[in-house]
């Protein structure tokens, strides 16, 4: 099993700033997904990027994927206090999917 591994583990920024989180993985993948988890709640799917895609946008989110470096980044622009959460990336490895420990993002108002 191969996990997505996010960094940094924790990130604290001011409202309005951009937040960048990174994820690395170890094997070949078909897709990589980013999720958000608010404290004490279930996971919310944010965005899926396929291995043949290099960049994808969704609202204030921008995800990049570099399969040669086996890494992905999630950029949240113009952050809001409501973006405070833990962010996870997950890869699929043929028939299974694993999560890393996540990045804890705190956006201060």
């Amino acid at each position: 099993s191969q996990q997505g591994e996010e960094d940094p583990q924790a990130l604290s920024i001011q409202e309005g700033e951009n937040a960048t989180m990174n994820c690395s993985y170890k094997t070949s993948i078909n897709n990589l997904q980013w999720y958000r988890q608010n404290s004490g709640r279930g996971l919310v799917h944010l965005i899926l990027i396929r291995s043949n895609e290099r960049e994808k946008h969704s609202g204030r989110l921008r995800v990049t994927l570099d399969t040669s470096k086996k890494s992905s980044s999630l950029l949240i622009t113009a952050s809001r206090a409501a973006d405070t959460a833990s962010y996870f990336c997950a890869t699929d490895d043929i028939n299974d999917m694993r999560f890393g420990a996540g990045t804890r993002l705190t956006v201060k108002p």
Partner: protein
Amino acid sequence: GAGVSQSPSNKVTEKGKDVELRCDPISGHTALYWYRQSLGQGLEFLIYFQGNSAPDKSGLPSDRFSAERTGGSVSTLTIQRTQQEDSAVYLCASSLGGAVDEQFFGPGTRLTVL
């Protein structure tokens, strides 16, 4: 449409008791996953069901943990002789065709073992 549902939402039990956690996946989804998230930790994969194939149990932490998926739909995660370290949020997810598809997560069951 209905998403993934889990029950109970909260479960408090005494050490040594058995518990059953239930997951109702989205109708038509062939893949079902169980994860565990302990306080302050990341997600830990437990078990994966894909159609009629034998489940991938590689993530189960001990033989006290087992899971079934009846009729390719509802799944039950059973923890026997619960220990305090079993306290966590147990998340279930389903996807349409397998790991390459987006997973839809349920709200989780918060298990507290006293």
